[in-house]
């Protein structure tokens, strides 16, 4: 296929540069998204090697680290719920190992001894999401993809019968048989310009970054409320702990979820809540120095599932968006599903739950 990528800003300048780079199975219960995640994490494993081979050592490292994740429960009742969740995941083939407090501390020594229990997910992994995006883009470019950055979509090109045959942009028109909207939380706006109706909105998240320190956070470490928050429909502020080291030696501390539109200001009350959660989970962090905070917007859909496939009302218009905080993790599988759909070929895993026309997307909210 002859492909052109159009981005309003620089590549990887929005949500892709604002996340932690989570490649997770741990936060997903049995269902379509977990299947997508399992498949996508498999794809990532082979993709990383082939990207490195293709792009060479001069390209920035994507910092893929299959370090595994530890989810800790802070109370007996949370532990019970966590173990039930893990058992259900095991039932569909996820490697989820329940740990006693002693086992958890052996695996992750800086965890608070006050936790009630934990589950270890060896398949959780991490990448540097902006670099990973750039690597994918460089690979696509090498395969002949044209990349137009600093170019915003302004409207649709249509034939005399009204069918979508391309886009108009701030840098001229581009004709295309198919147009795929993959604009993250801004996808709804782009879809509207092209005649589509897509309910994807921003869910703001903030992260703290510490100064460099000795390597003391060995896995991705979360509390159980992270799983609840990911699945949540609440529009109120939620914070839950996600703590991890980066290759550079800093520690990333998240996370928050807030529906405040595209307001990118840093809210001190949210930072305080994130900090307090993190200290509860890993007390040694109390003395860590925070040098940076940054935020971004996750693209969220009403039923918390990605939206992958054709717009039913606008022939030629396709979507690959709505992954909320899981976009970088689900990207390879999403791309594969979308490509199969575009070519009219069978998909490797079931796609029905992600199709834009599904009933759960046409809610009231």
């Amino acid at each position, binding site marked *: 296929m002859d492909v052109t990528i159009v981005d309003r800003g620089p*590549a990887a*300048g929005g949500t892709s*540069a604002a996340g932690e780079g989570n490649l997770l199975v741990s936060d997903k219960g049995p269902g379509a998204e977990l299947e997508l995640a399992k498949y996508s994490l498999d794809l990532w494993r082979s993709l990383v090697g082939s990207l490195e081979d293709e792009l060479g050592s001069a390209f920035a490292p994507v910092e893929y680290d299959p370090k595994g994740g530890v989810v800790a429960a802070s109370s007996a009742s949370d532990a019970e719920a966590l173990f039930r969740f893990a058992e259900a995941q095991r039932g569909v083939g996820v490697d989820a190992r329940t740990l006693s407090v002693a086992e958890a501390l052996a695996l992750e020594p800086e965890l608070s001894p006050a936790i009630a229990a934990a589950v270890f997910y060896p398949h959780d992994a991490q990448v540097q999401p*902006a670099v990973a*995006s750039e690597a994918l883009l*460089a690979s696509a470019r090498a395969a002949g993809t044209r990349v137009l950055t600093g170019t915003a979509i302004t409207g649709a090109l249509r034939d005399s019968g009204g069918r979508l045959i391309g886009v108009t942009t701030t840098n001229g028109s581009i004709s295309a048989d198919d147009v795929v909207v993959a604009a993250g939380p801004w996808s709804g706006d782009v879809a509207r310009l092209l005649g589509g109706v897509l309910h994807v909105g921003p869910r703001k998240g903030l992260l703290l970054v510490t100064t460099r320190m000795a390597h003391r956070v060995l896995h991705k470490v979360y509390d159980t409320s992270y799983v609840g928050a990911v699945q949540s429909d609440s529009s109120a502020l939620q914070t839950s702990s996600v703590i991890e080291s980066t290759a550079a030696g800093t520690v990333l*501390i998240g996370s928050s979820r807030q529906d405040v539109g595209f307001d990118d200001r840093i809210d*001190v009350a949210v930072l305080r809540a994130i900090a307090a959660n993190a200290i509860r989970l890993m007390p040694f962090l109390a003395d860590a*120095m925070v*040098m940076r905070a940054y935020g971004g917007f996750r693209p969220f859909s009403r039923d918390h599932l990605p939206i992958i496939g054709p717009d039913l009302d606008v022939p030629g218009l396709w979507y690959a968006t709505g992954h909320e905080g899981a976009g970088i993790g689900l990207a390879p599988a999403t791309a594969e599903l979308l490509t199969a759909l575009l070519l009219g070929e069978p998909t490797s895993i079931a796609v029905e739950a992600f199709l834009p026309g599904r009933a759960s997307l046409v809610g009231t909210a």
Partner: protein
Amino acid sequence: MTEVLVIGSGPAGLAAACAARALGRRVVLLDASDYVGGQYWRHLPPERPARREAVLHHGWSRFQAMSQALERDPLCEIVTSAHVWAIDAGRVHVMVGEADGAGREARTYAAAAVVFATGAFDRALPIPGWDLPGVFTAGGAQALAKGERVAVGQRVVVAGSGPFLLPVASSLVQAGSTVVGVYEASHLAHLARQWTARPWQLLATPAKLLELAHYASVHVKNRIPYATGRAVTAIHGGQRVESVTISAIDETWRPIPGGDVVVAADAVCLGHGFTPRVELPIAAGCRLDARRFVQVDEHQRTSVAAFYAAGEITGIGGVDLSLSEGTIAGHMAAGGHLEDRALRDARARRDALRSFAERLERAHRIGENWTDWLSDETIVCRCEEVSVGRLRSVAETSRSSGLRSLKLQSRAGLGACQGRMCGRSVETILAAAAPGGHLIDESTTDRRPIATPIRLAELAFGNDKSVEK
């Protein structure tokens, strides 16, 4: 409640606090250092005073009058060691105490008006060898000389651009160094064009001329060589600075072949202009102007209601301009009127000094080809040890024109200083290497929502009980 909160106690901040007090408002004056006075009036601590402070500092009597009046004033609270780390929803979040000490106190101010007087820090362009011990920023060397009476070396080269090099050389001489030479990158012809284009404007700023005349006399007396159209383009040494290469450069700051001289020195002071401290105004939502200073109107108002700005963050103009702007900002923040007689002098001086400052800025502007003296090995971001070659490599391999992505790929500007030292140089080098020769992000390296590092526990438990009502 605090009626006027002034952030920064250099000349602009002190003047703002005095003007607000003159209108009867309650004032809180914050400064990150241990004493008021800012970079300009940096002095020995009161417990070991110097008899010659008045000789060492211009406008010392003005400083003493302002600071003593405020210290005596029960309706002005001066808070030193006050680190403003965030501003959100108009509230100013502060940690008070030693920066790395335990037991800092959290305070949050919700003032009726805020005056930013956060000043600027001096910029040093990267140069091969500039990471050797013995290389200082001009401001750092001056701070050691004025605040600690410590000489940075015995044979010192001062290089860069701007009139600030002169007082730095004077301070070094007074601290006991031999200044090998002052190397001004701008060309004499260029300087002369800017300085004499409108000679009548100089008449409006006699204080400036006196100040420059004073430095000139120190220089003549101590026989400090002063050369224009010259730059330090390489610094050599094993364990520390041993010598420097001085190059003749053209008007774009490109080294002229055959124009190099190597000079022995044990220290180098670099000052290529100033970078305003704009992270707090940016966090408050204030717009910057095209030169990336805080945009203010005739009232010293920023683009955000109730936030004012004065001094070097609105444009580099020196102490007299800072005092004038501070007076106006403090008066307006206190609810005064622009036409008030009390502002007549300050307004007249501000307007005259601004045009003077604009001419200085044009005369000493960084030449666009300074990057020609870099080698691929030159470290640009010293916190993360990112070289020029690395920056160019990530731009070439990814063909990205996004600052954020390129920073994440190279890690430039992501270290402990958060790009304060290297940010603008990183931007310049990346832009030159990016497709089309420019970056297209909306954001710059100036954005730092956490303005100064804070311990996670301070963040977690510094609750809002301390908010002033």
